[in-house]
């Protein structure tokens, strides 16, 4: 009886132990005596997260930036056929890596679902979140996030068929009695319900799991209106509008404000400064017309603000814990704000001219504090 007991106990233990050991990438050798010093030297360097220091030092010591993206958002972060990640969010990840580490390729993209993104920041799985995340009061306060400068001003709009009597000047009040399709589990559902209530319109909401289902239903006449962020609507209109239909996006002023930008854990000023000023540098360089093509030539003979950002006289990057040419590298390896925007958003029909994402000199909202 006793031996049987021991037998099973031993078997159980062995299996658990082997399973646990096989799963781990590094074992408990750290407490081993001196004989294992050689082993410790051969294993990959482990970076301890120091509670006191800034994430900036951790990322620089690690040599890669863990950047949280969606991995499946048209023009923002798409996973391409070879597994690489492209899009405006992905490019801002690369820009931060270029500024902090000096290499735009030193990014480890982490695909996150909408529900796990904030947990991933809190547990330290990702250093910064570039996952088309809207800056809201609750996320800034109770969720424990901090938000960087807005890189894309989005807003929820509606799309309908011209044949149904809608035009660019239609308003939410005009959709009375319409069937509206949208994705479930997002704030778009709530926004349209609130907007319709305020406008006194009586609508029927249809929820779908994926965007493709929404647009299939819309094309086949299963609903009169589809609603989501304006950027997505424009992309779908460009790519999916059938020859026999004409779609229109309205109202001109979106029914919600969706400022999207980098998000990181709160109370880490050094890290926040590094991320924010990467974005600001890209905006300022764009204002001066500096691009990845002409940045080397421009920096060679630049004056004042551009010279400071290039790492010349009076530069402030070293004071932030970055290398002097950090932003030079950002522009060279990734591009200015305008370049990144055009590269990723023009193919889906989104242009800066006349939109909220034009520079402040052109009547838009993209604005940066001065670099001095």
């Amino acid at each position, binding site marked *: 009886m006793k031996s049987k007991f021991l037998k099973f106990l*031993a*078997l159980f233990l062995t299996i658990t132990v082997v399973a646990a050991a*096989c799963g781990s990438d590094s074992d408990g050798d750290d407490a081993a005596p001196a004989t294992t010093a050689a082993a410790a030297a051969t294993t990959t360097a482990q970076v301890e997260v120091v509670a006191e220091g800034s994430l900036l030092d951790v990322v620089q010591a690690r040599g890669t930036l863990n950047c949280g993206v969606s991995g499946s958002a048209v023009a923002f972060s798409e996973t391409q056929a070879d597994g690489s990640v492209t899009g405006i969010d992905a490019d801002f990840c690369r820009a931060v890596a270029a500024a902090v580490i000096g290499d735009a390729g030193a990014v480890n993209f982490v695909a996150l679902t909408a529900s796990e993104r904030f947990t991933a920041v809190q547990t330290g799985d990702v250093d910064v979140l570039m996952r088309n995340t809207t800056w809201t009061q609750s996320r800034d306060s109770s969720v424990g996030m901090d938000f960087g400068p807005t890189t894309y001003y989005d807003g929820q709009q509606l799309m309908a068929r011209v044949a149904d009597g809608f035009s660019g000047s239609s308003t939410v009040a005009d959709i009375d009695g319409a069937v509206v399709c949208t994705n479930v589990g997002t704030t778009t559902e709530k926004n349209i319900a609130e907007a319709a209530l305020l406008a006194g319109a009586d609508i029927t909401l249809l929820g779908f799991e994926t965007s493709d289902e929404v647009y299939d239903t819309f094309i086949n006449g299963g609903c009169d209106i589809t609603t989501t962020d304006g950027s997505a609507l424009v992309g779908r209109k460009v790519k999916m509008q059938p020859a026999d239909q004409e779609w229109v996006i309205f109202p001109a002023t979106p029914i919600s404000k969706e400022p999207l930008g980098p998000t990181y854990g709160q109370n880490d000023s050094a890290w926040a400064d590094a991320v924010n000023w990467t974005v600001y540098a890209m905006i300022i360089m764009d204002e001066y017309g500096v691009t990845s093509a002409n940045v080397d030539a421009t920096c060679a003979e630049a004056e004042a603000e551009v010279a400071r950002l290039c790492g010349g006289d009076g530069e402030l990057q070293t004071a932030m814990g970055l290398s002097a040419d950090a932003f030079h590298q950002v522009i060279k390896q990734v591009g200015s704000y305008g370049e990144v925007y055009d590269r990723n958003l023009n193919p889906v029909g989104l242009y800066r001219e006349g939109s909220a994402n034009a520079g402040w000199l052109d009547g838009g909202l993209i604005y940066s504090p001065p670099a001095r």
Partner: protein
Amino acid sequence: MSELSSTTGNLEVPYTPPPATPHLAPREWVRANLFSTPFNSVLTVMSALILATIGRGLLSFLFNPIRQWDATATNLRLLMTQAYPEEQYLRVWVCTAVILILTGLSLAVWRAGSHVPVTKVGRNLLATGAVVALMTLLAPFSASATVQWLVAAAVVAGAGETLRRGVGMRASASGAGGSDESGDQVATISTLTLIAIALGGLVASLWVVPYGHHSYLMDRTPRVLAEPGTVAMTTKLPWTIMLLIVVAATFLGRSMRDRLPTNATRATLLVAWLLAPPTLLYLVLRDPSFDMGHVLGTDLPIFGAYAIGGGLLLSWLTRPTTGEIGRIVAAVVLVVGFCTFLTPMRMIVRIDMLMLASFALAAPTFAGGPRARRRYVTGWLGVLGVSSWLITAINTPSTVDVPGDFFIGGLSLTFIVAVFTIVVSFPLGILLALARTSTMPIFRLLATWFIEFVRGVPLITILIFFSIMVPLFLPRGMELGEVAAVVIGYALFSSAYLAENVRGGLQSVTRGQHEAAEAVGMTTGQKTVFIVLPQALRVSIPPLVGHCIGVFKETSLLAIIGLFDVLYIARVVMPNQTEFMGSTRENVLFVSLIYWIFAYQMSKASMRLERRTGLGER
């Protein structure tokens, strides 16, 4: 009754085969089976109409020009491996080659004997041609396309008919000279040859048929490249080499079968299959760069000490005359193992000690003559060798330069998780089932609680718990990869269900079997290992395979914790590429075909296994 007598063999009752099914001409068969009564005729016509409508709908979906099939073609790499670096693809091909060599050897060793009549092949080809022709008429093709497809169908059907007629005539010609059986024997073809011809045709078509080349160019401005009419050398060359490898392996296997003892060959192959997943995974994902000085100086001496010391100990313990003192020694080893495990020491020493303890405890079960003892010690050396290699490899830095976590996904991820979950949960499930049916209250209670608790919790909860919570509980300095954490959680979940399937099998083993085993003097361990488990597992084959198929398909839940499995890529990632918006339906259809192929192969394997073990016949 006669069959039973002939199998027992002692009674002189001749075996009479079951009466042959009368062979009906096609017209008579149709009348007897499809139009036997007016009601049946109506049913036949109705279902034929429904089938034709479904077929037409499917075909017009498939061949509609607005379908974005180039989305699937361009994204094949993403669907298969996600972001695995292209310059490391050689590793993947080496793995494929290893698996194909094993497959070729196994096919030759296990299935070399099976043949099919050529007439049957001809009939199948004829039927295929007829179906293709029917589909062509149903599909909304242009006139020229219809003619092309009809010609292709006619060629296939014609080949089938020639094969059937020609061989049939030759058979009847030879049948005139000899008996009917000899005619049948002439007109067969080995299944291996058939498979080789089919695969050869597929690979050859890569060189001949212009399938088109789809690729993705990563540049400042990324673009998708689609060149019609060519097949990339990086596609056709490796596949040709793979075909040659599998054919060579089959020939090698055939000569091995003739020269080597069958059972030993089969056992070796089975062990090789079992070792393949961890070894190949290491090759693809890590390929440890061993520090030879450290391996020779530390790891090998430890291995040697355990191999020699453990071997001697086990050889003594398995001696039938050792008796009660052996059990005491085994218990001491266990206590020592626990103490080593709790003291800080090299992981390899701790794990080996515990393994030695479990081997020592199980030793009396396998006690016997010199051969049995030698086998047990060899088993110990094998397990020790494999685990030492694994532990050493885990602690060695990887030579594969991969960009963090976000590089493995798609079908590879599905496979890795499914294979490891099944491999880990099988022994665990059997142990749980044994514990739950044992007479020892602590184990019974623990196993019951575990099973009932795990079965009461949804899989999603377990996956989220293991991917998010468990890494927080780990001691400082210990890291658990997300995939590894998920596999552990999923294996625990799966083992609870598996345990219940096995328990059903255990209950089907009658009391008489237990008593008979006890009557010949077997210990409880021997009875379980040699009498009860084989019968129980045999009975549980259908539910166990069903469970494996379920595990394979449920890996799609990985999407919930942000891992990109093949279905998630098809459903969410690919339709969100600028180029391929709105391609969900095509992608999902393609992925469901992949799922079906593998699930169907699993159930076919299960059917073969059931036939071999005689399940359902007695």
